């Protein structure tokens, strides 16, 4: 300790893990607010459950491993809970939310040795475990309130606390409803199914009642926090402005998806959706600005981050277009997470005074 204390520098910029995590939580406020507007009490219940469970699990883990429980104050567990909630469908039952949060903290983070040591984004890995374990629940999207979805009227009132609490804690059976009665397909899922029937993309979207404006604002089926591109972009720009993230990952990620989508859409518009559709669909913006930029599981060097972003973009678009799942953003980020050590090794910047990048 005393040795460390004597080493320069003797000044510090004042950044802390706590502030970094808090900034991201603040940046998610617009998206969280939008999710409450769209999904009413369902969103509130989901977010609160996930965050509380994540915090409690983290506290237990810390206690059990003999680390100071005050580490909780670094806000990283709260952020993981919030992340998870925003990626879950609004109709997720309470126990799945709890399970997911426990997974995120225990399997996604503490098993690797705690904050800083995990390879994968904890929230995303939990989300994928849930998707694999409960594929039906994880792809059932309830209709958002205030959706300007043509003639479809929401079956249940999400602004009514009792209804939502019943749905959340007791399941749709308690409301004498089938799950499918309150749900609808997401645009990505819809065009995927229609594509297998040979329906051209544009026609399918017409039949769906798709509008770019709705998708941009968030009046669309999808996970709790990922539908509103607008709200997420506000948060993303806040992060960029606060210098919490750099442009490298979101920019290269989104541009890659846009380029690929644009290229293929130009070649065959019947089979491939437009770049704009891809941009606003699913979890792309959430993943690009918030998930892929998770410091722990992304590369540290600027060039490495660009490579990482491009990789995420290629995988996202490929899964959406050719894969078995309608959405590929989460898988893309997780897959690229595996590649981070390699990327960090091979895409180090050129060191001052050296001719080339060191290969070693």
């Amino acid at each position, binding site marked *: 300790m005393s040795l460390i204390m004597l080493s*320069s520098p003797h000044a510090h910029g004042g950044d802390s*893990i706590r502030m*970094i995590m808090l900034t991201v939580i603040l940046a998610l406020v617009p998206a969280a607010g939008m999710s409450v507007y769209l999904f009413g009490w369902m969103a509130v219940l989901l977010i609160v459950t996930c965050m509380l469970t994540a915090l409690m699990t983290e506290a237990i883990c810390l206690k059990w491993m003999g680390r100071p429980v005050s580490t909780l104050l670094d806000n990283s567990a709260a952020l993981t809970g919030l992340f998870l909630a925003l990626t879950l469908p609004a109709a997720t039952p309470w126990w799945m939310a709890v399970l997911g949060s426990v997974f995120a903290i225990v399997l996604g983070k503490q098993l690797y040795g705690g904050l800083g040591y995990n390879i994968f984004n904890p929230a995303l890995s939990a989300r994928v475990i849930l998707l694999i374990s409960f594929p039906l629940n994880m792809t059932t999207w309830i209709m958002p309130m205030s959706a300007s979805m043509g003639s479809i009227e929401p079956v249940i009132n999400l602004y009514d606390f009792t209804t939502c609490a019943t749905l959340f804690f007791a399941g749709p059976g308690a409301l004498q409803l089938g799950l499918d009665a309150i749900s609808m397909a997401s645009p990505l899922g819809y065009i995927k199914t229609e594509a297998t029937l040979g329906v051209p993309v544009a026609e399918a979207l017409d039949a769906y009642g798709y509008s770019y404006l709705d998708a941009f604002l968030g009046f669309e089926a999808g996970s709790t926090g990922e539908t509103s591109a607008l709200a997420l972009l506000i948060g993303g720009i806040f992060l960029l402005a606060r210098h919490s993230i750099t442009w490298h990952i979101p920019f290269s990620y989104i541009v890659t998806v846009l380029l690929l989508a644009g290229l293929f859409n130009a070649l065959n518009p019947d089979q491939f959706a437009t770049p704009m559709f891809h941009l606003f669909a699913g979890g792309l913006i959430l993943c690009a600005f918030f998930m892929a930029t998770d410091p722990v599981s992304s590369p*540290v060097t600027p060039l490495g981050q660009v490579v990482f972003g491009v990789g995420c973009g290629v995988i996202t678009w490929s899964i959406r277009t050719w894969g078995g799942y309608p959405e590929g953003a989460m898988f893309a980020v997780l897959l690229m997470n595996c590649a981070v050590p390699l990327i960090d090794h091979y895409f180090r*910047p050129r060191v001052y005074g050296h001719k080339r990048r060191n290969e070693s």
Partner: protein
Amino acid sequence: MPAMVRKLAQRLGMLQHSFVGGVHPNMHKLTADVAIEECDIAPVHVLPMKQHIGEICSPLVAVGDLVLRGQKIARSEGYLSVPVHAPTSGRVVKIEEHTIPHPSGMGLPSIFIESDGDDKSDESIAPISDWINTDPTQLRERARKCGLAGLGGAVFPTFIKLVQDKRFPIETVILNGIECEPYLTNDHRLMLEHAEEILEGMAIIMHMVGADSGIIAVEDNKQNAADSMQQALDARSDMDGVVVHVLPTRYPQGSEKQLIYTLTGREVPAGKLPMHIGVLSQNIGTTKALFDAVMLGKPLTERTVTVSGDALAKPSNLLVRLGTPVRSLFARQGLDDFSGIQIVHGGPMMGERLKNPDFPVVKSSTGLLAMSLQAMKAAHTVEQPCIRCGHCSEACPISLVPNLLADQCRSDQFEKAAQYDLFDCIECGACSYVCPSNIPLVHYFRYGKGQLALQRREDSFAEASRKRSETRDARIEREKAEKAARRSQVRKTHAPKTDEAKAETDAETKTGGEAGVADSKATESKD
């Protein structure tokens, strides 16, 4: 700005070059408007025998000797070294070890001079006012004789850099007036108060190395210093090749390699010196000292020091004789009680932290800071795990990946760290400064460099002893063959065997003995 865009813009001449990374610490230049005050002469001065990078000096005086100001009191032993001079007239009272400004609190043999109050100077060194018609080698000898070493803190013997080498002609002389460390303002004040002398010093340097062009670099947080230099420049007709450049304030702009890149767009290749790309940079204080040495015949016996810090009521810039006890300087500025106060020698980014103020002002003393415990705590709180945020990579002016290097040093993978260019780290501290987890990255790098140097020394020792044992094996083989030859001639068998055994034990004791020496060396360098 994206690096690619910036490079393109630079190519098109739309932008100045600028080094990568860097940070913007709070500058705390409390003393920017405080004129340099001359300090009273202390009753006793302590002159450590090594105040430069290189070999230690040996005393030329004995206890009881009377000395004059500027008299050489210690002689350099070896090339990479400069002598030490008496800072005032008086008597040598003792020669013994005394603490120097080093974080380990180590000491060095030092000469103690009790001032007689007369401050009489030794006039034996004549001014060379006609330097323009003087042979550069003679001026170089003057710089060495006067004990000049880089006063920016690195204290590299100045004369070594002031050389004309036909293979590497110097085209550009850079006068480094950046002073990018927080708190420090002594170069700033020198530029305001002694612009003419500094400029004359620069002219001498350009004459010595045969350069036609020069750049005076000043950060834009001291525009008045740049103006002052420009004014002095305008008043001269013989320095047409010199321009003043005002650069945006960013730490570590003043670091030699970064400054050279910013000004010329060229990098000093790894393992090379600025002179290899035709550049020479000198610090403001050193240039002024060169002026004093050449034009006034004055050896280096004083320097300007910024005495500051958040715990000091009366910060100032002082002209101080070398060897002055630091405690008395703080006392002069109204600080006597050091409880809860931390002392930093140099600037907060690269300076050394010391336990107490019981050390003398030396040639490397750019600043003396009294910092409150709170201010220091911000920099030295408990280390948290690395969250791989990449802020350190972004801040590194050398484009290293500090978090990877720290990992490697921490897990003793020193060779790997060396492959990741650990030795290119300039220890500027920008990475530690931005790290949200408060990881003492620079500390790990120093540790890693130290361990690696040690390991390499051991390796070369192992190599040497391997060679030795090979020669021994060869000799034994040869002897055996000879014996066998003798045996076949003389049919007596017992004598040779003992010989052989003896040779073996001899060789072993030798190896063992030297291993012991190497071990003790190892511990030495760890301290």
